[in-house]
């Protein structure tokens, strides 16, 4: 009797669970335990979102607000409107800083991508020692930019190794105050920046080159395409995403360069290597002109945004265009 009741109860329970399952769309079966913790709720990201909002976007917005004031970092301030921005574009030293920023960024993007791509092509296949060479090429990237710059400052010193080597090989006439000449100081800064970042760009291109099927290149070679033809028609189109990434990264990095300049030349000689980034630091922290420094930072941000968007548009793929 009990068994019949039990079986009836079970049948009823099974039927009811089956109906419930049918109503909910779930497969029928024994009821499963509800887990204590469920994953993937959107509000789990809320603390991180609030932190990013507070530490990045709110601070950026407050910095942008101070760009329209004359705040010195302490005490009270007055709203000055666009006076800070007018001052930026009417001060020769700051116009010079803007020009240096663009020159350094352009040279940095072109040279790192050129040499990075060349190294990537050279170390992509065939060469047996390519893995060791890749490591050596990437090593400068992991070093501190400040430490690298101070070592290069020693190299470029008037009594440093570079002039000593030039003198030793009979090129004494080439000896120079590399960091005290306005032209060679700018070139020296670019050399140090490019030297340290070639490895990073090469790694990006190596990743892109790895996706290029060797058969396509062989087929192009069989069709009579030369080295340049194979590169232009087969390789380059396929590494376009790597090109976009490398140029964007180097453009942003070049526009906001700071460490190397402060260590090598401190913006000198006589402002010959000043950039917007070094001016932002000096105006804000050395001179205590927080409002003006914020205005400079806002201008630099807009410049980076404009160039980054333009660069993304220029390197978009044909598929993106046709959509």
């Amino acid at each position: 009797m009990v068994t019949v009741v039990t079986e009836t109860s079970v049948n009823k329970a099974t039927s009811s669970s089956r109906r419930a399952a049918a109503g909910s769309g779930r497969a029928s079966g024994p009821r499963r335990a509800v887990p204590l913790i469920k994953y993937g709720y959107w509000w789990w990201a809320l603390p991180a979102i609030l932190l990013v909002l507070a530490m990045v976007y709110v601070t950026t917005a407050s910095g942008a607000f101070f760009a329209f004031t004359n705040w010195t970092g302490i005490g009270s301030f007055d709203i000055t409107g666009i006076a800070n921005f007018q001052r930026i574009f009417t001060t020769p030293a700051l116009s010079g800083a803007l020009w240096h920023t663009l020159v350094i960024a352009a040279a940095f993007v072109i040279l790192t991508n050129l040499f990075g791509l060349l190294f990537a092509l050279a170390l992509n296949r065939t060469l047996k020692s390519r893995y060791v060479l890749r490591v050596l090429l990437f090593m400068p990237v992991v070093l501190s930019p400040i430490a690298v710059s101070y070592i290069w400052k020693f190299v470029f010193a008037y009594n440093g190794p570079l002039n000593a080597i030039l003198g030793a090989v009979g090129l004494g006439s080439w000896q120079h105050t590399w960091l005290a000449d306005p032209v060679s100081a700018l070139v020296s800064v670019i050399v140090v920046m490019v030297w340290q970042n070639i490895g990073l760009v090469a790694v990006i291109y190596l990743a892109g080159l790895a996706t290029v099927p060797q058969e396509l290149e062989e087929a192009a070679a069989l069709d009579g395409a030369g080295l340049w033809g194979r590169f232009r028609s087969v390789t380059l189109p396929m590494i376009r995403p790597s090109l976009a990434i490398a140029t964007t990264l180097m453009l942003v990095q070049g526009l906001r360069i700071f460490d190397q300049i402060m260590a090598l030349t401190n913006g000198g000689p006589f402002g010959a290597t000043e950039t917007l980034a070094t001016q932002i630091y000096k105006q804000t922290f050395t001179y205590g002109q927080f409002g003006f420094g914020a205005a400079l930072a806002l201008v630099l941000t807009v410049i980076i945004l404009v160039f980054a968007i333009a660069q993304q548009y220029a390197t978009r793929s044909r598929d993106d265009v046709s959509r």
Partner: protein
Amino acid sequence: MTQQARRVRTRLLAATALPVVTALALAACSSGGGTDSGSSKEPQTISLSYMIANNATSPYEVLAKKYESTHKGVTIKLTATSVDSYGQTITTQLQAGNGPDVFQVQGGTGQVQGTVNLAKAGLLAPLTGKNIAATIPSGQENLFTYKGKQYEMPVELLPTGLIYNDVAAKADGVTLTASSTLQDMYKACTTARSKGHALFALAGSISQNTGIVAVAIAISQVYGKEPNFNADRASGKTTFAADKYWKATLQTIVDMKDKGCFQDGAAGAGFDALTNGVGSLNATSYAFTAPVGAVADLENTVPGLKLEVMPFWAPKGEKTRMIVTADDGLAINAKTKSPKLTQDFLNWMAEPAQASLFAKTSGDLPIVGTNALLPQYEPVKNIIDDKSLIGPFPYSDWPNGQVYDALGTGVTGLLTGQATVDQVLQSMDQAWG
């Protein structure tokens, strides 16, 4: 307990765990250092921040330890910050409301951490100790007071001039004294060059060093003849570009470059050119311009090294003067929780015994009291003792730090040929505002 009941209990425990853990974390994070909110007695632990430029023992550290040993129950927490970042560090802390109780400041308005700037912003407490007023050198009240109240207590007299290696100079047949002239100096430059050396070492890439060379010249050539130049400039009666004595000062630097007074590659050199060039037993230069308290540090670093203090020589017929300034000092945070203790500490620092100990440790001159000069000051004793031949840093009451930076950067431009004397002076006027 049924399985369902067990799950309910587990969920309840999990739901209550988070707020309990949060409450415990917040309680642990609450500040506990040195505050005594429940007692009427103020905290006997105070914080003291100061600048450092090298590893030498700071006089602030020495004096703080002495105060602790003579005042039972008092603790002074020391924070040393590099001179490069001290200004922005201290102003950021003060603005955020978590600044130290006592901290080093510099007089006037020419620096970010300038006393008058901080006093205007309401960040400093007026000083009330009976010994403190006596520390202000005559005629320099404007650097340490604001609206009639003193906000900084200067701690030493800081002479600035030439750190001179007489041993190296005499080895090359060069003899210069404090009474030599600018013309004697030019002759010595030629003699030094003939020996393959240079009279001066210059860190041309560092605007602070090029700037200090310019003001060490200007203290004689400008302020010896126009002691009120700064006031006249502030009122608009004159400008740097229109002042013939400032032109002569910068022209002196150009002449020094043309006559080979500076070492090769001076325009791009760093501080190592000064210490290696002059502060060495194999010196290749005889002099560099700096706050001369560095003599003690250099002699301690290089055993057997003997250096002297010299003024920057004035042209023949003019009086040679030196910068002797009471620029560095201590101030009290307006929001300190220990107002009585901090005032007592500064009042104690102003006593002659402490002033003497501070000067002995730093290698500079005591702010109060009369003590025998250190040996390196012997050549300039007559200048230092004559109030008409000394003056503060010219830039102390310039309106902002950009003017001095324009001067230092401009001197580099003179050395590289990127700028003329007139252009540098115009840039200083532009920076003045």
